[in-house]
């Protein structure tokens, strides 16, 4: 059974390697030609696709939990959702979490994922105390902060080896609820001002209305929040809805328009409103619908995510949003987020500035449009997120990531470039 990525594009055949012990993986690594690790298949594009995949999700034991100090050690296949099930009741939470909890710890490290608190707490690598990694020759090494291997592996898209275990530091919480404030803005200028006004709060994200035109471009709902302090930690995850088949693609428009209208008009009438919401609906609104990727139909979709440096963010975003709105393509909602300082990792995505992400179903003319958007991103000194990407050109990619040569050299010197490759790494010569 072949494994696919979240965007269901491209659909490719692959051989899947499973393992339940280090020794078993060493043997299989030895006989395999080229491969890359695959966790829970939530990266959108071709970063975890290859002819041979090491499926790490079944390698999923909890190893140790220091409940007093909030230090958790797990195997790489453990999902963030499983961590939450285990630690929330003891008053701990993930320091960094993306918009889905259905990713593996190995995937979180390889993508050096970030979340709504990037402007304050940074990327996932911040909470990784150390991890173990199987190298191309089967040797297992323990990797600590600041080592070269740490900088190359966090955000390194699985191209340095197979991550086996990780030791994570958690964040203390005293409630499973979030005190949320929702700010309705009328244009990009107001949206930016609102981000700045609320940036002292740990969590923030904005949903941008991509249908807005002219002076309304950048009209958004900004949601900010912090954990409540009511002592309620009795966490019981809800069961999920399922989308059992691919939707015909016309269903998408109707669905997303309805969702937006509902949120936009019902949720906040007059600018600013306050809500108390569960962390599951605050951080993971889409996780409650299993396989929501199927709403884009059988041709699949991609998510376009870029980030621009702060100084060029406003102009760049206005131009890009304008182009998207004119094209009539793309989802009706985009996610906008303010980011904090970048870290030292070679290929981590975040830089200080604003990032925008939106979904496009795969259709004729799409890649041409995205190429045009790329040109603006490059002009503004921005970059594209590898974890979402399936089509960016080598040139565009290289102009965004100034440490790419360091990464390439490191891979070559350590014999990683022959063993570990994805469709994406070959496409971009990573």
């Amino acid at each position, binding site marked *: 059974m072949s494994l696919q990525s979240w965007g269901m594009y491209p659909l490719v055949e692959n051989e899947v390697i*499973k393992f339940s012990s280090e020794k078993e993986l060493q043997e299989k690594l030895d006989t395999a030609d080229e491969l890359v690790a695959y966790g829970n298949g939530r990266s959108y594009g071709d970063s975890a696709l290859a002819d041979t995949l090491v499926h790490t999700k079944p390698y999923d034991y909890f190893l140790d939990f220091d409940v007093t100090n909030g230090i958790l050690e797990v195997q790489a296949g453990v999902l963030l959702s499983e961590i939450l099930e285990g630690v929330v009741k003891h008053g701990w939470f993930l320091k960094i979490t993306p918009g889905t909890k259905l990713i593996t710890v190995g995937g979180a490290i390889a993508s050096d994922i970030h979340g709504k608190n990037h402007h304050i707490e940074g990327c996932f690598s911040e909470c990784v105390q150390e991890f173990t990694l199987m190298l191309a020759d089967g040797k297992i090494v323990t990797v600590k902060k600041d080592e070269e291997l740490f900088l190359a592996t966090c955000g390194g898209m699985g191209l340095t080896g197979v991550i086996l275990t990780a030791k994570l530091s958690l964040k203390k919480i005293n409630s499973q609820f979030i005190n949320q404030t929702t700010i309705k803005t009328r244009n990009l200028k107001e949206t930016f001002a609102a981000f700045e006004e609320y940036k002292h709060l740990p969590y923030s994200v904005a949903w941008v209305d991509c249908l807005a035109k002219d002076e309304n471009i950048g009209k958004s709902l900004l949601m900010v929040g912090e954990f409540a302090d009511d002592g309620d930690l009795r966490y019981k995850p809800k069961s999920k809805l399922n989308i059992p088949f691919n939707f015909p693609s016309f269903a998408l428009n109707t669905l997303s328009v309805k969702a937006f209208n509902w949120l936009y008009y019902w949720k906040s009438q007059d600018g600013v409103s306050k809500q108390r919401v569960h962390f599951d609906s605050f951080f993971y609104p889409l996780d409650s619908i299993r396989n929501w990727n199927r709403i884009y139909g059988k041709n699949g979709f991609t998510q376009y995510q870029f980030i621009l440096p702060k100084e060029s963010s406003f102009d760049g975003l206005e131009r890009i949003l304008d182009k998207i709105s004119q094209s009539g393509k793309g989802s009706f909602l985009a996610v906008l987020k303010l980011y904090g300082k970048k870290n030292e990792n070679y290929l981590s995505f975040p830089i200080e500035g604003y990032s925008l992400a939106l979904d496009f179903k795969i259709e004729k003319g799409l890649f041409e449009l995205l190429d045009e958007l790329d040109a603006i991103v490059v002009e503004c000194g921005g970059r594209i997120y590898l974890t979402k990407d399936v089509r960016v050109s080598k040139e565009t990619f290289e102009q965004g990531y100034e440490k790419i040569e360091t990464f390439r050299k490191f891979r070559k010197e350590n014999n990683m470039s022959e063993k570990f490759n994805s469709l994406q790494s070959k496409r971009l010569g990573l």
Partner: protein
Amino acid sequence: MSYVLIVGAKSDIAKETARVYAKNGYNLYLGARDIAELEEFKTDLEVRSSVKVELVELDITAFNTHKEIYNSLAEKPFGVIVVSGYMTEQHKAQKEWSESLNTINVNYTGAVSLLNIIANDFEEDKRGFIVGVSSVAGDRGRKTNYIYGSAKAAFSAYLSGLRNRLFESGVSVLTVKPGFVNTKMTEGLVLPQKLTAQPSEVAEDIFKAQQTGKNTLYTKWVWRYIMLIITTIPEFIFKKLSI
């Protein structure tokens, strides 16, 4: 009385089932022939769920040891889940008697030996639950898998009788009939994705069905209807088919 005994604990379905019960606060006895391999899994369960987990060395085909092992449990379990299973390729099973016998003993005789002892105990105490993981393969014998299928058919019939007997004592008996499941047992087989369950889905289904006192569980649910069709085909047609 919060312990659940899971027999055949090394299988993928058993492990996921153990996780679901642990998540819901049950302490566990994990029974398997070679328990050394389960040490890391024991830690996993304890760290995830803060429940107590004991490993119990138990060979389902060593019939005469069952009574002693059961009596030696420090605290009597509140429920038992028998997941033990052995499936070899049909052509091997029909050629080699030892393969046939092992299939019958692991899937049927052993389970009967152990469950007889536990059923008597539960009946006397008027409490507890019994879950037996059988298979859709037991619903009708097919040429591609009938030695395994017949052992599971016997197990299903046993569970049905047991349910009938224990009804009055308030002990519930659940027969689980998984269809295709993506496990070590089926590794290498090409399975239709839409009909194939993940072990974790089977485990959630088992927990729900057991907690609500269901009698028979097909998982995925669609197998109830597939098997309804398969068992309805008249024998004079069925004998000519290759399914």
